[in-house]
């Protein structure tokens, strides 16, 4: 078994309440109840998320020694995702349209897609993502070694399902509230406003404008999801976008990136292959 990674991205979480002692057999039993279950032979597009150990990628064994991460507990979960390869769908549709000499109707396309999914999905192997975390029970802290939104959501959900404990991200608010600053400062923290630093490039005198507060950003309101109107005509590329599986894959395993931000571009090489880190 290779050692835990020595580079990459990490997202810290805190929890409150009491977790099962990771040294107890009961801890491994909890993991076992939410173990990874294979979808290798599934005939539909689906995602499977569950615990495994660094020593056993199947999720069949949870020996306490396999969770030994020195001063922490080494957790690993696996995300398998099976989805229809859209290129195959496009090739078959192009061939069908060429053979009959005209475009297929939306209904015909749907039927062709359903037929192909029945035929091809049992033969498609799922993509696999392995994600590690280090849990420090005495500090009520867990470090997740993945930064993608999908991996974070999968992890917090799996953790809750396993231990009935809600993880809180160590963001600027939670990190402050969890720190040893006094209650008065914590009270101030909850209500503090951003500093508006003066723009001195606009000053034409030697005195600069005063420092002021600016309004604190309010949490955005989540709009209720509106059901999408069924599409009657889709192109091949439309089809691949609209019918993507319900789970965004983790960039860490070399699957499709969910964002192209500067940071992700910067981190891509170090997150590209987990095995490299080990």
């Amino acid at each position, binding site marked *: 078994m290779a*050692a*835990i*990674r*020595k*580079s*990459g*991205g*990490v*997202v*810290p979480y805190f929890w409150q309440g009491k977790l099962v002692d990771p040294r107890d057999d009961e801890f491994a039993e909890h993991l076992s109840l939410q173990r990874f279950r294979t979808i290798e032979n599934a005939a539909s597009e689906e995602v499977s998320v569950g615990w495994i150990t660094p020593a056993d990628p199947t999720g069949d064994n949870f020996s306490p020694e396999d969770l*030994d*991460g*020195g*001063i*922490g507990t*080494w957790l690993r979960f696996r995300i398998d995702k099976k989805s229809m390869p859209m290129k195959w769908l496009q090739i078959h549709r192009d061939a069908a349209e060429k053979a009959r000499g005209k475009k297929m109707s939306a209904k015909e396309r749907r039927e062709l897609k359903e037929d192909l999914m029945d035929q091809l999905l049992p033969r498609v192997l799922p993509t696999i993502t392995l994600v590690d975390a*280090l849990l*420090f029970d005495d*500090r009520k*802290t867990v*470090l997740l070694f993945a*930064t993608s939104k999908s991996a*974070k959501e999968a992890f917090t959900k799996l953790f809750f399902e396993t231990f009935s404990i*809600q993880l*809180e*991200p*160590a*963001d*600027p*608010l*939670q*990190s*402050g509230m969890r*720190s*040893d*600053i006094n209650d008065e*400062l914590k009270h*101030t*923290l909850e209500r*503090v406003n*951003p*500093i*508006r*630093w*003066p*723009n*001195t*490039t606009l000053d034409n005198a030697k005195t*600069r404008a005063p*420092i002021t507060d600016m309004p*604190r*950003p*309010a*949490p*955005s309101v989540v709009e209720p999801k509106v059901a999408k109107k069924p599409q009657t005509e889709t192109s091949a590329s439309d089809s691949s976008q609209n019918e993507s599986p319900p789970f965004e894959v983790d960039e860490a395993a070399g699957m499709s990136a969910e964002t192209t931000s*500067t*940071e992700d571009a*910067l*981190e891509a090489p*170090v997150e590209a292959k987990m095995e490299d880190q080990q």
Partner: protein
Amino acid sequence: MSQASQGVETHGFLGEEFLTWMWFKWETEGGEFTLSGGRIVGIAIDDFLTFAALTEDETEQTLRRGSPTRTEEARTALRQGHRLRKARLLIAEGERQWTATIDAPSLTLGGVKLPEDAEECESEMDRTADRAANWLALHEIVQALYRLFLKERLTSDYQSTGAEQQANWMAR
């Protein structure tokens, strides 16, 4: 909205102020901090900076390679009142040195490089234990630095003391 993203949305600016404060402390005081328990850590801004946009319509500015903190673009951004959104830091404690890119609004760490494995590590298990200790140490250093910042930032006279000094530095 989940609680997970609420803290980032409402208090992400504090992470940005924290990162900018570390730059200020590094340039004006050398970047050495004494943490609780007498631990001394040193920080330096490395070769990657992103300035937060002042408004949603503005463009984020990223500077990378070389010494971006010394560039005219960086000084102009500070003079315009921009905060740091991301920066790659060198963090050292004793013999150990980490590099990490801090995403300020979430305080997550990207592109981390741990110190070299200890020479005493003879097995993969030893290496795991050593690295786990280094991951935790990095997390605790960042949290401790943030705590130092908060203790200064949340005092009632901050605007007339620490912020005033930082504003003068930003205006240079």
